[in-house]
């Protein structure tokens, strides 16, 4: 079950539905994915000594620090980590598609399909509030 060769992606996304779908796709492509909602979650992982190869973060995060600031600080302190900033569903879907193409398991998928799936879930969430 555990793939010790798998790269670890720290995914930071405050919307639970986007986070759930994108993180699961990245796992299907063979990555280990740690899910967080705020910049401080990434710092907690880094301070624990756990190795992260990629940070995939939305520009808008929970907590006080946004994605731009996090990216700048990580590039200063951990230059070996790739930081990818996204904005919204479409950006996250496209970036995860690109990551999957480079991932350990070749599992092609269309970014627009992922985006469509998230939009359906968001629509259901809205409908359930009415």
């Amino acid at each position, binding site marked *: 079950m555990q793939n010790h060769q798998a790269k670890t992606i720290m995914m930071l996304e405050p919307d*639970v539905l986007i986070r*759930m779908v994108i993180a699961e796709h990245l796992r299907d492509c063979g990555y280990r994915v740690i899910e967080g909602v705020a910049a401080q*979650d990434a710092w*907690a*992982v880094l301070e624990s000594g756990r190795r992260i190869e990629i940070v995939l973060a939305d520009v808008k995060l929970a907590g006080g620090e946004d994605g731009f600031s996090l990216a700048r600080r990580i590039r200063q302190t951990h230059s070996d980590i790739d930081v990818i900033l996204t904005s919204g569903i479409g950006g996250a879907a496209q970036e995860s598609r690109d990551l999957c193409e480079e991932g350990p398991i070749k599992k092609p998928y269309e970014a627009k399909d992922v985006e469509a*799936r998230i939009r*359906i*879930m968001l629509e259901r969430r809205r*409908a*359930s509030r009415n």
Partner: protein
Amino acid sequence: MVDPVETPVEDSADVRPVVLVVEDEFPLRWPTSEYLRDSGYRVVEAASVDEAVMVFASHTRVDVVFSDINLRGDRDGIALSKWLHEHHPEVPMLMTSGHEPAAHAVSTGAKRLFIAKPYVLADVDRLIKSVLPRNG
């Protein structure tokens, strides 16, 4: 509300039991979720009761909920237990807290279990398996 188009949201080939982990403390949610994934579950992570409810609203399959009781926000784990009892009575729930809750708080039905913090992850796995409909 009926879906105009029934779109499959789940991978039907995926037979792993789905655990919804509800925990607002990232340093705890992260290792717990990772351990459960390595134990063969599909894990959905929620940082609040609101997020947990959104997961259900999105029609994502959830087989069991593992939730902290003391959560930040308007609703705590007891409120989530009541909501679940009302809307998804078939879904069992394992609750956790650093403080032993009042007995009536976790006994809203047969499908409620409690484990005290700090917990041993293997015990969480064992308790989840014990409440899964077909024993995981």
